């Protein structure tokens, strides 16, 4: 049992918490160890300093900024980048269909369909009603 272990346990006791060591063992050690008694006395004196303090409140209203960011989500920027990429891929796969003797099989038909679906979804203003969902969650908080 080191001095530090006893000091940690004694501080827990002073805080009204359950110490990790038996109270009797802490008391025996403190009775014999002047250094531990001194350090604990100093640390407990800090508690009096804290008693005269409270957390300072800082008035803040971040809701307008948060609301603005919720209404223009990152998705808008992503959408702007995603649309040309998807469209280019769609054109490329459609062009592949004109290559004679191509061996990609069903992929040349399936991929353009998937790409077209993705372009349609991204092009929607709000395909999944995300904002409506957020509003109802906000009200529930």
């Amino acid at each position, binding site marked *: 049992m080191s001095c530090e272990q006893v000091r940690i346990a004694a501080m827990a006791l002073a805080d009204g918490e359950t110490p990790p060591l038996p109270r009797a063992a802490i008391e025996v050690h403190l009775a014999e160890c002047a250094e531990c008694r001194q350090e604990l006395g100093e640390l407990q004196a*800090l508690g009096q300093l804290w008693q005269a*303090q409270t957390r*300072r409140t800082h008035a803040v209203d971040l*809701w307008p900024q948060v609301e603005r960011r919720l209404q223009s989500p990152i998705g808008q920027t992503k959408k702007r980048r995603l649309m040309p990429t998807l469209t280019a891929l769609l054109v490329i796969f459609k062009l592949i269909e004109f290559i004679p003797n191509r061996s990609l099989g069903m992929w040349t038909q399936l991929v353009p369909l998937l790409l077209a679906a993705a372009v349609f979804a991204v092009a929607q203003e709000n395909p999944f009603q995300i904002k409506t969902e957020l509003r109802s969650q906000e009200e529930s908080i």
Partner: protein
Amino acid sequence: MERYQTEAMGHALAILGHRQDAEDALQEAFLSTYGALSSFDDNRRFYPWFYTILRNCCWKLAARRGKQEASALETVEILAGTGGGTIEDRLALEQALRALSPQSREILTLRHLDGLSYEELAARLELPVGTVMSRLFHARKGLREQLGGKQ
């Protein structure tokens, strides 16, 4: 959200120490919270759950922020006197707190200003109770050293 922002601002300030950083972290935390609301268990208390998100945002911001850049930001006070102590004591404690690591500031203010028990600290900081005891002890030692050095 409006209900919690003053309290959350106080907590973010205790970790980051600068108003602008605290506001940035808080905004990020609110946005992340909206994204994660579907995973929130209604049987739990909201603020401790939100605090986990907030402190993650604070640590990310603290990691991104360089020391030089941070020193140019507006420093705001964490403490307010209750009338029971002197202004000198408060200023000394404030200055000593600022000299500590964000982790030490966080655990000390949660314990002494919010009155969280060891169990509550363990839940809030996602640490075992034994680690909370040890961190709190070392944070207090650091604070005493800072105060000792200034007196």
